């Protein structure tokens, strides 16, 4: 279909792969930051196309995965209340907390609803004035404007029975945390295209300079990803370390200014816990004091809920790019999407869940396919 097929063209893909092969002289480790990119890479088998020596490691950019367990438990405590209609994006419903998931709570009588836009909550709140409508506001910078718009509109329109449970995280502090880690293996990043469509990419320039690391802001289609990889390899091979924009059809350096203004009128930067990684200073958003009346964490008194993670799970190492799903003895055995032990198995965009969804738990090791990888054959 238009605007899709041209970004999935097998012949063009083969040409970019040839170019990567021509440019590359030594092995490189490249991290795609965003969960959507991980999903696309595994779905289209892009890692199978790459020349040997280009290793893709999967980053922390899956918002569902990195939402801390204690936040999931807080959401569940709120969703169980009979006076609450709990609204969420679809893929949060299957994320297990310490006791079941939102589907379970729904089956036990909780009013849990999937919404496709946070603004749907306004309509639900108006139709149910005797209920508290709570939206689970998770995500990176990508979802922040729409989530901010919900409380902004609720305040403006005087809809008092709407609140949000905020668990927003930010990409640049996570990249800094990965690069600062003594075990870091990542030599270049494919930057998160959708995050930068909101925020622009100027904030990645100091990171690139300070850590001397190439960052190529990249889209999500197969050819976007291959081109982003090529640009990263070109930088690595020539010793450059710059921020480049592969996804120029979607974004510019400054990003979406009105969206940023809205976000900063509603949220302020604060510390956040990341599932699998731990606390990162200044790595998330919290509601500004003016919006306290729409802050579910305050309204429902769940601040004291605390939890502990599985000790077997290596998702922290996976999120930092130190390990891959196949390195984990529990992958596809004790740990699967039905019984995730940790962050990277809980959402389709988590590295472990993406590997699982595309059947890679059925193979003992990273597959090396022969005979059917010739690009353009389709």
């Amino acid at each position: 279909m238009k605007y899709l097929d041209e970004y999935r063209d097998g012949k063009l893909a083969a040409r970019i792969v040839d170019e990567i092969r021509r440019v590359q002289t030594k092995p490189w480790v490249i991290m795609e930051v965003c969960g959507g990119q991980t999903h696309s890479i595994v779905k289209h088998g892009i890692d199978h196309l790459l020349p040997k020596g280009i290793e893709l490691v999967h980053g922390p950019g899956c918002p569902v995965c990195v939402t801390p367990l204690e936040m999931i438990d807080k959401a569940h405590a709120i969703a169980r209340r009979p006076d609450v209609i709990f609204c969420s994006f679809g893929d949060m419903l299957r994320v297990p907390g310490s006791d079941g998931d939102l589907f379970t709570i729904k089956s036990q009588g909780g009013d849990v609803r999937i919404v496709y836009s946070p603004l749907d909550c306004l309509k639900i709140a108006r139709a149910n004035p005797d209920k508290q409508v709570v939206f689970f506001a998770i995500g990176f910078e990508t979802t922040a404007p729409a989530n901010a718009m919900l409380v902004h509109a609720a305040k403006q329109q005087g809809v008092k029975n709407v609140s949000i449970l905020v668990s927003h995280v930010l990409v640049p502090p996570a990249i800094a945390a990965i690069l600062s880690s003594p075990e870091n293996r990542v030599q270049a990043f494919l930057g998160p295209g959708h995050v930068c469509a909101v925020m622009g990419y100027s904030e990645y320039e100091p990171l690139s300079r300070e850590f001397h690391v190439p960052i190529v802001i990249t889209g999500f289609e197969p050819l976007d990803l291959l081109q982003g990889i090529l640009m990263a390899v070109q930088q690595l091979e020539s010793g450059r370390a710059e921020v480049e924009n592969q996804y120029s059809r979607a974004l510019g350096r400054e990003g979406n200014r009105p969206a940023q203004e809205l976000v900063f009128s509603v949220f302020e930067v604060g510390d956040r816990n990341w599932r699998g990684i731990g606390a990162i200073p200044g790595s998330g958003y919290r509601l500004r004091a003016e919006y306290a009346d729409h802050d579910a964490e305050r309204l429902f008194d769940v601040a004291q809920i605390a939890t502990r993670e599985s000790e077997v799970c290596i998702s922290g190492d996976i999120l930092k790019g130190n390990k891959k799903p196949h390195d984990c003895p529990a992958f596809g055995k004790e740990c699967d999407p039905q019984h995730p032990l940790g962050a990277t198995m809980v959402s389709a965009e988590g590295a472990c869940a993406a590997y699982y969804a595309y059947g890679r738990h059925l193979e003992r090791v990273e597959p090396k396919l022969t005979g059917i990888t010739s690009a353009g054959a389709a």
Partner: protein
Amino acid sequence: MKQSASEKAKESSTAQPAGVPSPLFGSCPLPIFEHKQIVLGHGSGGKLTADLIDKIFLPAFANPVLNKLDDQAVVQIDGARLAFTTDSFVVTPIFFPGGDIGKLAVNGTVNDLAMSGARPLYLAAAFILEEGLLAEELQRVVESMRDAAQQAGVQLVTGDTKVVNRGKGDKVFITTTGVGVIEGPIEISASLAQAGDKIIVSGYIGDHGIAIMSQRENLEFEGAIESDCAPLNSLVSAMLEVSRADGECPLHALRDPTRGGVATTLNEIAARSNVGMLLEEAAIPVRESVQGACELLGLDPLYVANEGKLVAVVAPESAEAVLARMREHELGKDASIIGEVVAEHSGMVRMKTLVGGTRILDVMFGEQLPRIC
């Protein structure tokens, strides 16, 4: 790959004469079912559904006919081979573009019968009505069932009606049960796929699931996508007319990929037949509108439900003839060979992607959920 429910059942039932309870019956402690309560995913047609069948239904009812776990039972009575099946319909909304719950209830059961190569004959229908349902809506559903039965050439010969309190149902639930007769030496089963066979899909996939989704509350997705709901028995009988030179039936396996979609159906056939499958993404027919909706919602059309499509696993020497015959039929005009059965990677379905990579298509886990971004 994990052994499927059907394989386990098959093993446990071998050497058991018909009518004698298998050793499973009454002697096996019930396997542990992990969920304390039923969740929606148990009705998705994916892994959770298989889990329910495996751990709750099969241990209780196991017998050689059931253990085959085809979409219909085939039983022999006084020399006649009958296909027998039942299905419940709980779709919301009850009217949707391209059909309604009544049309679905008739075609769903007709299609389950047709997938054994049977000629569907008679249907029974049971209605569970919610107090407060508009009589006019019921009338529309019933008229639609009448028209669908007429089109499929079946008669609705018996039925039942119950009414439940308001709030205890959702307007109307319909269960249809059907019988058909298998004429001639037709042997079609999900366990008969062989390496070398071609895999044919009868047209565009994913239409029904996306049509329903676009109508559901909370999803303001305007789309001109219509359900593909249709009776497939006349298409199947056209396909059966193509005979191999040696007189053998060229159709080895037939399934209508409803819940769980084409990917889940092919996985079932691959597991049952102990073969692998290799698909070509470029050959799989998906409408632009359906592809677009799936891209927006983060869904995969290969896992989206169909109600008027079939997948056929066909002997290679007859595949082109069967395909040509399908394309002459209104319901098969967009049919396409999407891949082949291979001896390698038994039980596993692989696909060459458009871009030239490969991926594995696993069984759907539970409900497909729209992704966050």
